[in-house]
């Protein structure tokens, strides 16, 4: 029975169809990104479970296809093992691929990416995301403690109710726009907003999502009763205070933050050109890493030589100039528990392939020489 199920799940037909679907998605997504940008292509084809062609016809997304392939591969090796057909080359190859897919999942679901732009001399232990935004609740005007709560923008949907700490207040989300322009138009009842904006206009999303400014409109409920409407925009000058809130808190939209395990201070950014040309030879940032325990050390971060610190990795990403001529170095920061898994998975898979195909070659050669001898 088990073998029957495994046989179905592990069928080669599923494999071929799955691989073909993945191939189609790869090609399609590549062409899509020419016009819509890499980020949107990733969202639509590779990070989704399914996509709609022309808004109506469903087509599997890469997440679904990869899950199916994962199950398919697992079933096929289990079947081989159950049947006692220990073809090690195949088993090892597919074990490696399973690990690879798992690594992808870990990276995608658990990984965090952000960037840190520092002017020479500046230091910080907080990195910012390029594309992801969050709703942040903080004490208004800096009063009181530093109790800050955040909620990713992705979690907001029209109609969703979000309770605030304290139990009394609930946000009922009305509108969420990924890319918007806030306007100051005359309306009957103006929503509460720190900058005096009264409405949100939708804008077409950019190829580079870092330029998209989201906006949110919600109604505040106090003890179940509807109070004011609020508008929050990414370009607000300051967080918007909640009216009638005993805790004197404010809400705002900001790029998602990633807390770093140490303060990184940029000592010096250096750009070397190949002599007599405009071609960059190397970029490097000399930084001072001040850990929370108080120790300090100098590290040079350059292209192809990142800094690894407690599960975080810092890469030299880009640079620019601040007004006044000081140089600004941008480091990209990644927190990824599954970072080393692909390395291991590659080695295992290649070993498996070598075993499998070499075995076939040896068998073929032996057959041929036996054939000749006969």
């Amino acid at each position, binding site marked *: 029975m088990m073998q029957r199920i495994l046989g179905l799940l592990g*069928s*080669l*037909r599923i*494999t*071929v169809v799955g*691989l*073909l679907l*993945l*191939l189609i998605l*790869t*090609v399609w*997504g*590549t*062409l899509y*990104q*020419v016009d819509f940008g*890499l980020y949107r*292509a*990733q969202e639509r*084809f*590779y990070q989704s479970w399914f996509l709609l062609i022309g808004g109506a016809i469903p087509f599997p997304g890469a997440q679904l296809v990869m899950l199916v392939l994962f199950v398919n591969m697992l079933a096929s090796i289990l079947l081989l093992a159950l049947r006692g057909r220990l073809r090690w080359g195949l088993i090892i190859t597919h074990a490696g691929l399973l690990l690879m897919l798992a*690594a*992808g999942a870990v*990276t995608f679901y658990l990984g965090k*990416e952000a960037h840190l732009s520092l002017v020479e001399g500046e230091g910080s232990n907080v990195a910012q995301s390029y594309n992801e935004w969050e709703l942040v609740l903080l004490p208004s005007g800096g009063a009181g403690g530093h109790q800050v709560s955040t909620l990713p923008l992705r979690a907001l949907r029209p109609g969703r109710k979000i309770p605030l700490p304290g139990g009394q207040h609930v946000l009922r989300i009305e509108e969420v726009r990924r890319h918007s322009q806030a306007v100051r138009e005359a309306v009957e009842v103006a929503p509460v907003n720190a900058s005096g904006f009264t409405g949100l206009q939708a804008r077409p999303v950019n190829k580079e999502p870092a330029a998209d400014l989201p906006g949110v409109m919600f109604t505040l409920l106090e003890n179940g009763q509807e109070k004011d409407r609020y508008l929050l925009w990414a370009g607000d000058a300051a967080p918007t205070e909640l009216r009638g809130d005993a805790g004197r808190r404010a809400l705002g939209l900001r790029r998602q933050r990633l807390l770093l395990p140490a303060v990184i201070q940029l000592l010096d950014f250096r750009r070397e*050109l*190949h*002599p*007599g*040309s405009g*071609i*960059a*030879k*190397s*970029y490097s940032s000399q930084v001072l890493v001040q850990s929370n325990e108080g120790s300090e050390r100098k590290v040079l971060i350059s*292209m*192809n030589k*990142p800094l690894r610190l407690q599960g975080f*990795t810092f*890469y030299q*990403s880009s640079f620019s100039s601040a007004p006044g001529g000081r140089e600004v170095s941008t480091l*990209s*920061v*990644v927190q*990824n528990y599954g*970072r080393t898994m*692909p*390395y291991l*998975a*590659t080695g295992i*898979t*290649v070993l498996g*392939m*070598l075993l499998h*195909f070499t075995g*076939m*070659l040896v068998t*073929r*050669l032996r057959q041929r020489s036996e054939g000749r001898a006969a």
Partner: protein
Amino acid sequence: MKMRWMLPIVLVLALIVRPAPVRAEVDSLQVWDHLPVQNDGRVMPMDSYARNLLLGFSGKSTFQRQPASKWLARLLFTPEAARDDAIFLVDNPEVVEALGLSAEGRGRYSFAQLEPALHELTRLARAAFHLDDEARSPVETELMRLYSNLSLYRQLSQGLDFTVPRPDFEVTSADLRRDLELPETGALTLLDVRRQQDRINALLKMTSSSTAPADTYQQELRRLSTALRMWSQQRGSLPPAMIPVSGGAEPWVGPWDALNFGANNEAVQADLQALNDMAAAFRAGQQVAFDIAARNLASSVTKRGTDAKQVRNLKREVQYNRADAFYRAELFYGLAFLMALLSVPFRGRWLYRAASLLVVLALIPHSYGILARMVIMGRPPVTNLYTTFIFVSWVCVVIGLVVEYLQRNRMGLITASSMGLALLMTSARFGSDGDTMGVMVAVLDSNFWLATHVVTIAIGYAGCCAAGLLGHIYLLQALRRDPEDAALKETYNATYGALAFGLIFAFLGTMLGGIWADQSWGRFWGWDPKENGALVIVLWSSILFHARLGRMIGPLGFAAGCVLGVIGVLLAWMGVNLLAVGLHSYGFTSGIARGLAIACGFELLYVAVLAPLARRRAQTRVTG
């Protein structure tokens, strides 16, 4: 003719096919070719500098059957004489029209012919520059390219013109010549006069106080002083960058900048004087004087600006340029291919042996070319698109030879010789836009990853290409043979093996690329076009193997799949670069886009026509 003699005759012919010897007034440019020039971030010999320039202007690296360095010497030392050299390739007849030139259409024009249209060209090129890459038409891109070439040409023609006699610096007054310690007769260059700058200033001061009416002496004195000032003001930042000022990794300067700012530097002054002497000797056709001055310049410059390794590499690079190794390899591969093909119907032993020997012989210059480049650049074999073709073709040849060794049925030879020839010929297309030994940009500047990821993926491409070619052979063979035929099965085995080899390396290469990306940018996989291209190759090959294993396709389907796989390789290799530029932009890439489309179309057609025919044959044999 007896077959026995073919091989020696062919070999002799191949050995004597080489470019025509240099004919020049200054006979030998041996020293000139080795002079170092700093360009695009590296120190290269004048020979390479000249070849790259001429390639960029005219699409060829020789002019009137003479080496590029000869043309460059003429341009630098005798700019007036070079005005009529037809070196500017104008590919697009619309460009000719737009510039209002006499309608000669597509062809090579001289600077003299293009000069009247310079104003209009500048205007059009500036307008085109402000457009987005995607909005530019092919004509506009070509106009910009031509403008940039002509600007560079003009700069070069002025680069050494302080060594060219000019009327501004003519001195007829014998007294003045004597006072300025100039030679009694002969034309004078700016440099000749400038060396006496102090004396001129002193004399001017003396004579300005006198109230006598200006005579020739004074007029000429004043003219010299004014001319010196004007010329220096108008000339600056001109190529070639052949004078190192302070050594080390400091940028080198062009001769004019050295002249204007190097007054206190004795060594620089000596270099400029050497250039002056070289120019005079060149104009007078005096080989010995030219060489002596050039040697002085070379030793002075290399002592200040290069280290021993760079000097050795200058020699190696000139040697490499002159060897034209890949062209020779192409010739051998071409002949080998012809013989291998002929040996199929004419089953002569000697044709087979000749073909085998030729392939092995071709590998010699082919390998020399790759190794020489590695030594000169200090890099692994693949550093840019041009070198991918050179290297992939080498691996294909090796794979073909291995297949031949195992099977001895000429299929391996055909694979080796055809892939060697085809890919080397394609490489020429990609090697024509400038320095093929260019420096690496920061993010790619890692010998470790270049040696691992890039080389591995190139080997993977080679395997898939070899499998593709063997697939072509299979489909042809299947038209005339039964599926059970032993030779057909051998071809299938070779195809299978080549694809397996290709898959292992393509997979490994793709994953190494991910690891490199992780080390460099923080993410292993980002679904970007280059990564996706490699993945497509891996996925397609996997599909073929799994479909075969599951008996969803037979050997014929597998072979057809390998042929289609070549499309994947081509698109990943070259097509992705087109995407990066923008699918809607043309220019130099239009040639590539068209070539790519033709190649892919051909493969599709090949499969669409031959596969059904072969299948029908197999079926009728079974049922019949």
